[in-house]
């Protein structure tokens, strides 16, 4: 037993399907990308941009391998992952994604808080009850706002807006606005790998834990969101 422990600690745990070993041997990591701004941006047949392609590129560099990108629909990507045709899927996936039952998710590497923020000149509200809160386009947050009694209002352009806004904490920080104590939702972001391939799961998690910080990711997200 002790021998088992001492000899295999370094290679513990291993992949039943040898995913990590194959990535290292072939010198290529097969990455499935699902468009989801600003996590993954770009379009078919382009090299993807955004936060997660940057992270994966750095991870591949650490492993000493090349990245082969594969664009596709969610369904096609997960199907390929379940058949070990892909090694990783990125696409702004969160821990709550129901595909998590079929594949392996990494530990959440970033918590994306959706909060209420106000411009620097406006004093933050003490309650949301009856307050009109603007929602930028593509932010799904009106249910959470209504639960707190706020009145959601769609606002395409925030340039000259001077009231409370519900959006991502990194966007509030990026615009130089002040955040309030009202957190509406927290999305825990993960990446997907083949189920049970524990060696590559551990390797990617170690990379995400050691090489990224929340502040750095918030910054990268803001840069990816503003062209």
């Amino acid at each position: 037993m002790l021998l088992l422990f001492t000899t295999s600690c370094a290679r513990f745990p291993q992949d039943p399907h040898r995913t990590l070993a194959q990535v290292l041997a072939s010198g290529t990591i097969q990455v499935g990308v699902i468009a989801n701004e600003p996590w993954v941006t770009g379009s078919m047949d382009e090299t993807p941009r955004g936060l997660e392609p940057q992270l994966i590129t750095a991870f591949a560099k650490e492993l000493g391998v090349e990245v082969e990108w594969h664009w596709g629909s969610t369904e096609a990507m997960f199907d390929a992952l379940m058949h070990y045709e892909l090694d990783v899927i990125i696409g702004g996936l969160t821990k709550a994604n129901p595909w998590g039952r079929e594949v392996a998710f990494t530990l959440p590497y970033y918590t994306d808080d959706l909060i209420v923020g106000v411009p620097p000149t406006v004093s933050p509200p003490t309650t949301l009850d009856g307050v009109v809160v603007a929602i930028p386009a593509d932010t799904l947050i009106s249910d959470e706002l209504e639960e707190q009694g706020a009145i959601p209002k769609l606002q395409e352009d925030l340039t000259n807006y001077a009231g409370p806004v519900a959006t991502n904490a990194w966007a509030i920080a990026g615009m130089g606005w002040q955040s309030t104590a009202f957190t509406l939702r927290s999305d825990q972001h993960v990446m997907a790998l083949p189920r049970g391939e524990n060696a590559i799961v551990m390797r990617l998690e170690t990379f995400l834990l050691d090489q990224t910080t929340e502040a750095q990711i918030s910054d990268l997200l803001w840069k990816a969101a503003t062209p």
Partner: protein
Amino acid sequence: MKVRPTYQLPSEKQEKLKRSILLEWLTIFFLITIAALMYWTMGSSQAMRTAWIEDVLSLVPPISFLVAMRFRDRAPTAKYPYGYRRATLLAFLMASVAILVLGLYMFYDSAMALINTEHPTLGHFDLFGWYIWSGWVMIVALIYSMIPPIILGHMKLPLAQALHEKTLYADATMNKDDWLTAGAAILGILGIGLGWWWADSVAAGFISIEVLMDGYTNIRQSMSDLMDQRPTAVGSEESLALGERLCAKVRRRADVADAEVRLREEGHVFSGELFVVLREDGSTFNTVATHVADIAEEAAAFDWRLYNLVVMPVTPNSLEAAESS
């Protein structure tokens, strides 16, 4: 209506019973800490989930025992002239059936995991900001889950023997053998680490068989408690031959020509009927009653577990008839 007298445990046994009750409370306490720790570290391992269910289920016997302690010494009432013992035995039977059914479900679940080739994912575990492979954390939790039950099981076994408490005995045996469950789960997790995805569901299957066997043992125990079996030894199905020895003793009395006995187990006590043929000495009805009371007193003193033994004077013919049947 004349209800049964309340059973009085001999004073030297009372101390042992108090100790058993304390040990059962400790068992519940440790099982809760184990279940909480296992739940926290569980992850997606099938073996770990099965071992967790097994630990939660092993709460059933100590809880049954403690509930029984509260109810069974209640004095019999006009509505329940034979007392309350059976209510707790029924509860134990139902709980045992539940354990057996859960064991079947767990076996099905692990067999399906094996058939569907489910690969358990074990990544990092966040141990208060310190990240290590979750398999190691699970193994530590499983090692912890082995220790208190083994110690408590060994402490409870001799008490169960001394008090003739078969529920306590079944519980102590389950605790004592609990290391098998934890050991199987540890091997399953080490197997996952070596890349053997199947090790997890195989370990889970083994644990579910353990649960099935626990359920079977408990059902057998509670059924035979309810079925009024003859007095048998704790931990084996061997007869104590108590009836034969009691008869031999009563037959030696000067006022008894012959005697037969019919005893049944009611959990930790024995009850039944003693049939005696009194010697013809021209007794009046009142002196027969005096003899009977005297025999009853002597018989009750024969063994501490004898409770509410009824002495019945019969004719030699009816005693023979009873024997031949």
